[in-house]
């Protein structure tokens, strides 16, 4: 049988129309010499419009970011290629990567970010038997000069000393959440200031599904990187998400209920919560409007994925031709665990791409045409992304979890209008403080949605506690919400915090009463 051709017309490069092609990208043939400028063009095309604080401002002559740059590095293919590209284009100022127009002294040829930091979050302590790659990663990063390296560990998310080290206040008490109960009640922790590693493993062991463990680690890593960006005075955090991995994370996000955050998967701006912001920095403020604005801008971190137009195959080709020794990532598995939604999605998308080669780019282009619908109710206390208003009422309405009132009997008035059954029976209305009102839909689902069958924990020997610790940023924000000037350590103060919940409950009931009246 004759093999199907991978290219459309000829084997000659479509760009120079001269050399024999070396790579086929979705039926289009490129030679090695033309592939390099093509990839750099795609990289710059995504990154550079986001560099200046005002994205639509003039950038032909100057790229002036409001702060430094952090590269989120995982050791995988995408982030290795990203690190190489950032270094060549913006640190080493490699002439071969410069646009040809503009002359030798064009301001574009100046260094864009004063300081570039590579931040690596080691996750080996989250899974049994996983190797620590920090040293290997440090060696890889040291190949590139003029880069700072910040190694973190995933348990820093539960580490008060790290939180203090990055300039945050730790004057809040130890509180956790009861993950065994769908109400997600907030409870004081039995142990004060637990060891971060134990706290991490208790938290992960309390999660209901492998999907929840994977997505929690991704969320913790993302927030750790964001706080590092803030600490290093960075205005930009770049991630090595390729076109392929973006398509996977978009579909996986949709499957986990993150439709409201589709836009954030491609590009987002993050500002720390006012309660957990670091103390005013030491940069002298001359009191002018410009200085104030500049300080404000530095508190916003823009997350950019400059490889989002570049597929996995192109990344692999770049790494091969540039001799990049990719360290690689281990799979997040443990004995008895079934694949989570992220793994299933990746396998599915890569498989579908074989038969339908435009799947990945179609997914990304389609999601690029979407916008969130509905109101934002604030930021999620776990992941920091915008949370949609009214998700709990929606969840309660479409799946009843407590006994609804009996149906109307035949003797009831025939004029009675058809009204929805109450979604929260008043007798069971919860008056204890809960984490639920502070969570976005996907994070709430992560903490509450269970598998049909019991799931083995990655750390079955970890002492099981009914109350799981929370990440430091969540504790800090809850503490601030709860104490309003005093400590949240005793029951009474917790009761103060829940008043907001009751107000919200009342809002739900009011809304329901309106429906009845109408």
């Amino acid at each position: 049988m004759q093999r199907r051709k991978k290219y459309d017309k000829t084997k000659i490069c479509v760009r120079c129309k001269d050399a024999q092609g070396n790579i086929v990208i979705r039926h289009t043939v490129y030679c090695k010499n033309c592939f390099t400028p093509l990839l750099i063009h795609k990289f710059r095309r995504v990154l550079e419009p986001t560099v200046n604080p005002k994205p639509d401002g003039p950038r032909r002559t100057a790229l002036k970011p409001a702060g430094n740059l952090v590269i989120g590095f995982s050791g995988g293919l995408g982030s290795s290629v990203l690190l190489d590209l950032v270094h060549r284009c913006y640190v080493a100022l490699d002439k071969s990567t410069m646009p040809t127009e503009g002359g030798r002294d064009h301001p574009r040829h100046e260094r864009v970010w004063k300081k570039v930091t590579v931040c690596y979050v080691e996750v080996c302590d989250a899974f049994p038997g996983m190797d620590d790659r920090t040293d290997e990663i440090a060696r890889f990063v040291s190949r590139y000069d003029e880069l700072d390296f910040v190694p973190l560990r995933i348990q820093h998310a539960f580490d008060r000393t790290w939180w203090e080290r990055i300039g945050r206040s730790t004057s809040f008490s130890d509180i956790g959440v009861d993950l065994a109960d769908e109400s997600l009640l907030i409870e004081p922790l039995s142990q004060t200031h637990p060891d971060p590693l134990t706290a991490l493993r208790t938290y992960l062991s309390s999660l209901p599904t492998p999907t929840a463990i994977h997505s929690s680690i991704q969320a913790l890593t993302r927030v750790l990187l964001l706080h590092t960006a803030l600490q290093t005075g960075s205005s930009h955090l770049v991630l090595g998400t390729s076109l392929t991995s973006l398509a996977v994370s978009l579909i996986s996000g949709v499957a986990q209920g993150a439709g409201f955050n589709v836009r954030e998967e491609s590009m987002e701006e993050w500002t720390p919560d006012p309660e957990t912001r670091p103390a005013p920095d030491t940069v002298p403020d001359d009191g002018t409007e410009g200085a104030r604005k500049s300080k404000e801008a530095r508190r916003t971190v823009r997350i950019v994925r400059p490889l989002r137009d570049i597929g996995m195959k192109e990344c692999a080709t770049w790494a091969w031709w540039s001799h990049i020794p990719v360290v690689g990532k281990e799979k997040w598995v443990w004995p008895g665990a079934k694949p989570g939604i992220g793994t299933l999605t990746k396998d599915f998308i890569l498989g579908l791409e074989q038969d339908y080669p435009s799947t990945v780019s179609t997914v990304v282009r389609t999601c690029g045409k979407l916008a969130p619908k509905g109101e934002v109710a604030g930021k999620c206390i776990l992941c920091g992304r915008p949370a949609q208003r009214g998700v709990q009422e929606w969840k309660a309405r479409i799946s009843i979890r407590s006994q609804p009132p009996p149906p109307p009997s035949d003797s009831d008035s025939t004029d009675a209008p058809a009204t929805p059954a109450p979604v929260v029976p008043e007798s069971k209305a919860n008056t204890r403080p809960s984490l639920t009102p502070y969570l976005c839909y996907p994070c709430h689902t992560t903490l509450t949605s269970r598998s049909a069958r019991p799931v083995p924990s990655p750390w079955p020997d970890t002492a099981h506690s009914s109350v799981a610790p929370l990440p430091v940023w969540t504790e800090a924000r809850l503490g601030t919400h709860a104490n309003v000037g005093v400590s949240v350590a005793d029951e009474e103060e917790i009761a103060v915090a829940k008043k907001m919940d009751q107000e919200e409950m009342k809002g739900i009931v009011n809304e329901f009463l309106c429906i009845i009246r109408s």
Partner: protein
Amino acid sequence: MPPRTCALCNDARAILKRPKTGQQICKECFFYVFETEVHNTITEARLFKPGDRVAIGASGGKDSTVLAHVMKTLNERYKYGLELFLLSIDEGITGYRDDSLETVKRNQQQYDMPLKILSYDELYGWTMDAIVAQIGKKNNCTFCGVFRRQALDRGAAILNVDHIVTGHNADDIAETVLMNIMRGDIARLGRCTSICTQGEDTIKRSKPFKYAYEKEIVMYAYFKKLDYFSTECIYSPDAYRGHARAFLKDLEAARPSAIIDIIHSGEAFEINDDVKATQKLQQTCRRCGYMSSNELCKACTLLEGLERGMPTAAVTDRARRKLDADGPVPENLRTIPLFQLPSNLRQNAATAVEATS
């Protein structure tokens, strides 16, 4: 181990685990929460008003059989004041539809609802058996889907109803959301999670089972001992949908809430305003009067292709150009009869036109 008690009433013995919530509950509580959730869906979206004439799209399968039962139950329990009808489409698939229509006829007796059966043969002059004989099994779902959609509206117009309810369940909707993202069908992605489609001057179409899991529908039919036909269509090898369905089942196995989470995602986004502006406006087919986004509606284009021996004319651009190059439409071409809205909607449409002029 002692038997578990129902998580809802805390009284009776739990006999099933709800796929949607994971709760172990008794049979009576299951019936009640299932029906109440459908009732909540209906009332929250204000689907009906007293006196509405509503046709239930009935295929004889599990979804439409349970839908007919639940609609009848809720109509009586909550006094919706609806006049219910059964509307069936006979696609002309030997060994599949002829058997399932027998189920619908039994449902007519059991639920005491008027039944209208409309066939592709009488409407288009083609049965699905004849279409498959000409085009083969590939792409035949395109013909069947387009023809059925129009046939349902025409059946509703004959019954003079203003609303059609269909048995699309949560699994169908989640699968459609995924497929529309993966195929880049932005127009359908924008509307596939809407519970009710169509405007004031067209026949409304809605999906009361939008949040009902397929597994729970089967459970409901099983415990209620409902009479339904459970064979898959013999002409349904839609490969792409098959991939999406298999993927969805894997997701559901990993985390059962995935189905409802996908629907939530679909409801939480919308199409950008810039993209919306580029979408085609709805118009009327110049040949049959049915709503269309082009001069000719999809059903007329498909039918013309079949009649002129080029059935792929409405499927690929190349075939369409070939058909156009083949000369003008023959005068004796069989066409679909002119579509007319039910009388009450015709009045609405006329009023709307007067108001805008």
